[in-house]
């Protein structure tokens, strides 16, 4: 119940804050540009018919997969700007004292913060990206399964990205420091995926730790248990660090 109260306040804060609208608008604008580029590209390619020796691209291969991949990258670029304030602001303004002296546990604070963020992102995706399936269905015989798995991938990525944001925001009183830490972690693990082609340990790190590989399979209508485990574990780990950090406030 306490978790719900914290989540509710957090959610309402994002709905009422001009800053979150600015960030959301920029995010949706860039996503929209990429969507139209990908769509345009696909229309041109399919208009030319199958090239010599090539199969024509399906909607999944030609639109959903590249769009899902781009959407993920744009999301992790923008997410830290939304999440940076989540705990840093409370610590800096002194309102953390209200939470620390209230009958509420650190776990409830952290879970509430994360759920509030997720609630806002859910609204953002529904309202701001609802046109994507509509366009695809109007456009042709869009397959349902890859759309659903791509959505699942997006939600998992948003959940993990938010958890990373909650963690870094708990580590610093300065919002900008929290944001930079989030960017470094998210982009760093995204880039780590490029190591996959290497031999040996580095390649293994790229395959297992890299964010892209775990995320992109969802765009190809694949739900793999190792990807699910990856997102779930990273989310729980980050929230746990944040919880420990809040708890340690009582002791420092």
């Amino acid at each position, binding site marked *: 119940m*306490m978790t719900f*109260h*914290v989540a509710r*306040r957090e959610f*309402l*804060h994002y709905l*009422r*804050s001009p800053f979150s609208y600015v960030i959301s608008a920029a995010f949706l604008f860039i996503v929209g540009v990429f969507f139209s580029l990908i769509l345009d590209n696909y229309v041109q390619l399919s208009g030319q018919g199958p090239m010599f020796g090539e199969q024509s691209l399906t909607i999944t291969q030609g639109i959903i997969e590249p769009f899902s991949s781009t959407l993920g990258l744009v999301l992790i670029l923008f997410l830290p700007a939304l999440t940076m304030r989540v705990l840093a602001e409370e610590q800096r*303004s*002194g*309102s*953390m*004292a*209200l*939470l*620390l*002296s*209230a*009958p*509420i*546990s650190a776990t409830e604070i952290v879970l509430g913060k994360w759920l509030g963020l997720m609630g806002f992102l859910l609204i953002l995706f529904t309202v701001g990206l609802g046109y994507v399936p509509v366009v695809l269905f109007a456009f042709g015989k869009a397959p349902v399964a890859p759309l659903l798995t791509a959505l699942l991938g997006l939600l998992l990525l948003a959940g993990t990205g938010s958890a990373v944001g909650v963690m870094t925001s708990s580590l610093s009183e300065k919002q900008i420091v929290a944001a930079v830490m989030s960017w470094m972690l998210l982009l760093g693990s995204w880039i780590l995926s490029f190591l996959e082609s290497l031999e040996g340990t580095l390649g293994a790190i790229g395959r297992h730790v890299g964010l892209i590989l775990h995320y992109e399979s969802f765009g190809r209508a694949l739900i793999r248990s190792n990807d699910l485990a990856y997102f779930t574990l990273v989310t729980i780990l980050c929230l746990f660090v944040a919880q420990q950090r809040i708890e340690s*406030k*009582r*002791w420092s």
Partner: protein
Amino acid sequence: MIEVQQLSRRYGQVLAVDEISFRVEEGEVLGFLGPNGAGKTTTMRILTGSLGASSGRANVAGFDVHRQSREARRRIGYLPERPPLYPSMTVWDYLDYAARLHGVASGDRVSAVRHALERTDLLSVKGRLIEHLSKGFQQRVGIAQALVHDPPVLILDEPTSGLDPAQVAEIRALLAELRGRHTVVLSTHILSEVAASCDRVLIISKGRLVASGTEADLRAALGASQRVELLLARPDEETASVLSAVPGVQEVTVGEDGSFLVSGGDSDIREQLNAAAAPFGLLESRPHGGLEELYLQAVSDESVTETRP
């Protein structure tokens, strides 16, 4: 209502609170007096369960603030030195959130918030954003936040700091209303505040309890004598001897400004003294060396250092 036993807290090498023990009875208003950095805020944060103690125990409303932290925190209203406000919320929404956090049931929430607004006289600004309020109003929102769940224990850290004199008077009037209905611990470094608002005083310095009790207790403990300063319209050469003849008077000295400083040992000599001074045109009679002197005496043994967390 509050019981503290040998409470200590260190920050690294610095001992901020050093084996403090005290009790606060139900309905009592206790003043925490001490210079900045004496350990007042640290002690109060420990009492509210928002900071761990290094050693010792603290009980609030029958619950240990560490082992039964949640139960204890439910019964405490806390105003930190800096009010824990969310600037972008309206006063009403903020108090509603504070009520939710302190477990006020949904059916009682509207009346709880309204009641807190009435008690702090904030009804007129209930729809305003907190960031647009003056400092005095913000302080009152902070107090309303501590009151909203009607806790038996209120812990107020420097409730009047940084306010202008009119606002200080308003907050004091509010504190006077809280008296009797809540057990209150308030900290201050302003002496007149203690005299105005508190039943009992604890003086702490460098983390140690140096004196405690009512004003009279402190006076007795510190061996301070009753002294009265008299301002007379028509003093003459006989005045000093007349005043000396009043029963209980031990010493009469004449100040540079022509006032008479009369020392009365342990007994209260004011009534007879004033009667004796009346023929000389008594303009003013005031106790000399009140809390201020006691306070300085109490903290002067140890030099005051800044050890803020």
